C-alpha cells in the first residue's frame, strides 16, 4: 500500500541542477529502509517557482523542500518518511515564491481568476504515469465522444464554444476543422509544437507536465474531422517534451487509448512525433508542413490553405498545442460552460509567459480579457524595484509594443486588434522606464533578420536594411532622412512580405514609432527641438 508520495521537480533546470541524482539518493534510501513499497517516487514537469530547484514535495502533507542537493535526499527520507517529522532546515522558503507556473491569487470581482483549465494537472501529476492522468478525468472526454457523440457533435461543440486558435492569429478553431471535415479521403491532424517565439514557453509546460492532454486533444480532433493520423511537429530544442510525449504515446497505445480501434470503437488514430532542427520560420504553418515532409522550411503560397492542401497535399488541420489542449475540457463540460469563461468575443483562458522587469516571472493561466495592468499588478507582483511601467512587448517577437495607455485594455484577440496591437503567442515582456525603445526594436529586428528564410525579397533584404538603419540610429549616426527611409522600408516589408515572418519583422519599428516616435527622433544626428 502506498502511504506517501514524493514528487521531484523534473523540468530542465532542475535536471541541470541534479534532480536525477537527488531522486536516485531518495530511492536508494527508501529501499535501504525497506519503504519502497509504501512510498512512490516520481517527477513533476513544472513547479511554481524557479528559485529553489530542484524541489522535493512530499504528499499527502504537501511539504515542499528546496533546493534539495543529492546529499540531502537520504536525510529527507530518514526524517520525514521514517521518523515522521519535517526536516525544517531544508524547507523551501516561502517568501521568494516566483516561477514558471505562478499561482493564481483571486482577484476582487473576478469570478474566474482561480480557474485553471489547461494547467490544472501540470505540477500535480506525474507526467510519466498515464494512470494519474486517467485519475484526473484523463481520456474521459475521448471516451465520451466515442461512445455518445458523432463526429459532427464534437465539431459543433467546438464551434459553439467559440474556441480561437491560440498560436497568435485567433482564428475560430471550429471553422478551421469544418473545412477539413467537409472533404473526403486521407486527412491529417498536425499539432504545431514549434513554439519558437522568443519568450514563449507555454506549450512546453503543457507537453512536459501533462503530455496526454495534447494527445487526447489531437485524437478528438481526428475523430471530429475524420483523420486517422496525427503528427506533432516539436521544435528541436525541446528534448524533454519530446521524450515525455514519446513515452506518453507508447503508454496510451498500450492502454488502447490511441492506435487501432480506440476503446473498442471503430475509430483508429495514430500519433507520430517529428522534431525540428532549429528554424523559427517552421512555426509558420505552411513552412512547418514543408519541414514535416523533410524539406527546407520555407512557406508555401496561400491559398490553397493547409485545410485544402496540407501535409502530403491532403487536407490538414494545423493547431497550436494550447488550442488542442482546450478540446478535452470543452467535450467534458460543454460549450456553454466554456463560454462562461473569458470574454464574449474570446471565450476561455489564455496562457501567458510573463518576463522582464517584474517581481514574479513565469507562466500564468488567466481568463481572456484580463488587462495587462492586472497581470502586472496581481500576477507578476508589480514592477521590480518600484520602477515605472513603460511598455510591454506581446506575443514574442511578432507581437507589438504596448504602451502604458493600453494597460487597461482587456486582453483578448479582438480588443487588442481594435487598438492596433496584437496578443500574439502569449509572451509578455514587461519593460520599465529605463528601457531604450530603439535598442529594443534593434534586438527584435536582429532576430528576424537571422531567422528570415530568404525566400522573398521584402523580408530578406528588408530585415537587413531595417537592422542597418536601426544600428545607425542607435549609435547616433542617423539623420532624419534615414528615419524616413526606415519607416518606408518597414511599411514595404509589412505590406509585401510573403509570410507572417516578414510581415511581423517591421512591427517593432512601426509600433515603436507609433507610440514612442520622440525617442527615435531624439537619437537623430540632426535632431533639434
Amino acid at each position, binding site marked *: 500500500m502506498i502511504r506517501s508520495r514524493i514528487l521531484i521537480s523534473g523540468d530542465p533546470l532542475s535536471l541541470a541542477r541534479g534532480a536525477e541524482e537527488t531522486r536516485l539518493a531518495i530511492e536508494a534510501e527508501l529501499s535501504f529502509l525497506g519503504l519502497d513499497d509504501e512510498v512512490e517516487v516520481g517527477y513533476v514537469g513544472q513547479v511554481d517557482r524557479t528559485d529553489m530547484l530542484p524541489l522535493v514535495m512530499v504528499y499527502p502533507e504537501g511539504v515542499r523542500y528546496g533546493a534539495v542537493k543529492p546529499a540531502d535526499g537520504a536525510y529527507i527520507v530518514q526524517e520525514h518518511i521514517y521518523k515522521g517529522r519535517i526536516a525544517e532546515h531544508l524547507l523551501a522558503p516561502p517568501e521568494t515564491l516566483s516561477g*514558471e507556473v505562478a499561482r493564481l491569487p483571486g482577484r476582487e470581482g473576478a469570478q474566474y481568476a482561480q480557474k485553471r483549465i489547461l494547467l490544472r494537472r501540470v505540477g500535480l501529476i506525474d507526467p510519466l504515469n498515464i494512470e494519474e492522468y486517467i485519475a484526473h478525468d484523463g481520456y474521459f472526454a475521448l471516451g465520451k465522444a466515442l461512445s455518445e457523440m458523432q463526429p459532427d457533435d464534437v465539431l459543433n461543440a467546438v464551434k459553439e464554444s467559440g474556441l480561437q486558435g491560440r498560436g497568435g492569429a485567433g482564428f475560430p478553431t471550429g471553422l478551421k476543422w469544418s473545412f477539413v471535415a467537409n472533404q473526403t479521403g486521407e486527412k491529417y491532424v498536425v499539432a504545431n509544437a514549434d513554439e519558437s517565439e522568443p519568450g514563449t514557453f507555454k506549450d512546453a509546460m503543457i507537453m512536459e507536465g501533462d503530455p496526454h492532454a495534447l494527445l487526447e486533444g489531437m485524437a478528438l480532433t481526428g475523430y471530429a474531422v475524420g483523420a486517422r493520423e496525427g503528427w506533432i511537429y516539436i521544435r528541436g530544442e525541446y528534448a524533454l517534451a519530446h521524450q515525455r510525449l514519446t513515452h506518453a504515446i507508447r503508454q496510451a497505445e498500450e492502454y488502447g487509448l490511441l492506435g487501432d480501434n480506440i476503446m473498442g470503437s471503430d475509430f483508429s488514430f495514430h500519433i507520430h512525433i517529428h522534431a525540428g532542427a532549429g528554424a523559427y520560420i517552421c512555426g509558420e504553418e505552411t513552412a512547418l508542413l514543408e519541414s514535416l515532409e523533410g524539406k527546407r522550411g520555407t512557406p508555401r503560397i496561400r491559398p490553397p490553405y493547409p485545410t485544402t492542401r496540407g501535409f502530403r497535399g491532403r487536407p490538414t488541420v494545423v493547431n497550436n498545442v494550447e488550442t488542442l489542449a482546450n478540446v478535452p475540457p470543452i467535450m467534458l463540460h460543454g460549450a456553454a460552460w466554456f463560454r462562461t469563461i473569458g470574454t464574449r468575443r474570446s471565450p476561455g483562458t489564455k496562457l501567458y509567459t510573463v518576463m522582464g522587469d517584474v517581481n514574479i516571472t513565469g507562466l500564468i493561466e488567466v481568463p481572456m480579457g484580463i488587462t495587462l495592468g492586472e497581470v502586472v499588478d496581481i500576477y507578476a507582483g508589480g514592477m521590480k524595484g518600484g520602477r515605472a511601467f513603460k511598455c510591454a512587448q506581446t506575443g514574442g517577437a511578432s507581437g507589438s509594443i504596448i504602451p502604458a495607455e493600453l494597460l487597461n485594455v482587456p486582453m483578448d484577440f479582438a480588443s487588442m486588434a481594435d487598438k492596433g496591437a496584437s496578443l500574439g503567442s502569449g509572451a509578455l515582456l514587461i519593460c520599465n522606464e529605463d528601457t531604450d525603445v530603439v535598442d529594443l526594436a534593434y534586438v527584435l529586428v536582429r532576430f528576424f533578420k537571422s531567422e528570415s528564410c530568404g525566400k522573398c525579397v521584402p523580408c530578406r533584404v528588408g530585415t537587413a536594411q531595417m537592422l542597418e538603419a536601426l544600428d545607425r540610429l542607435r549609435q547616433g549616426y542617423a539623420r532624419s532622412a534615414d528615419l524616413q527611409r526606415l519607416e518606408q522600408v518597414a511599411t514595404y516589408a509589412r505590406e509585401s512580405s510573403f509570410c507572417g515572418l516578414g510581415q511581423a519583422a517591421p512591427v517593432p519599428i512601426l509600433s515603436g514609432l507609433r507610440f514612442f516616435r520622440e525617442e527615435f527622433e531624439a537619437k537623430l544626428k540632426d535632431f533639434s527641438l
Partner: protein
Amino acid sequence: MVKNTAEIVHQIMTRYGNDREALVEMLREINREMAYLSRETLALVADTLKLPYSQVYSVASFYSMLDLEPRGQHVIKFCQDAPCHVAGGRAIWETLEHELGVSFGATTPDGAWSLLTTSCIGACAVGPVMMIDDEIYGNLTPERVREILARYADADIGG
C-alpha cells in the same frame, strides 16, 4: 575511416526506413554522431535517398542545429533574444567574447570552445540564459559566467 562513416550513416538512415520525409531528423542524428555534416556525409545521404546533392545541402544549411563545419570541444549557445536582452544579456555577451577572446560564430584557436548564438531556448523566466553543450545555465551575471567557464576549464585539465 571512410567505411566507418558510411556504416554509421546507413545504420541511422535504415532506422528511419530511408524515408525522405525524415531527412531533417536523420541529418540531426548523423550530426550528433559525426559531430558535424561533412560534404562527403551529405553526398552519401543524397545518394542513398536518390536526391540531388544540392537539395540535401540546402536542407542541411537551412537548420541552425545542423553543423556544416566542426565545432569546438564545448559549444556555448547564448540566447540573444529580447527577453534575455532586457534581463541584462548584453553584459553577458561581452563577457563571453572577452573571456574566450573570440567573437560570436567563431571557435577558439585551441579548439576548446565554440561561441554561438541561439534563438530562444524556452527558459526565459531565468534569463539571461546560455547552453553549454546540453546544459542550461540561467540567471547569468558576468561573475557567474567566469565561474562556469573556469569550472569547465578545470574539469578538462583534470581529465
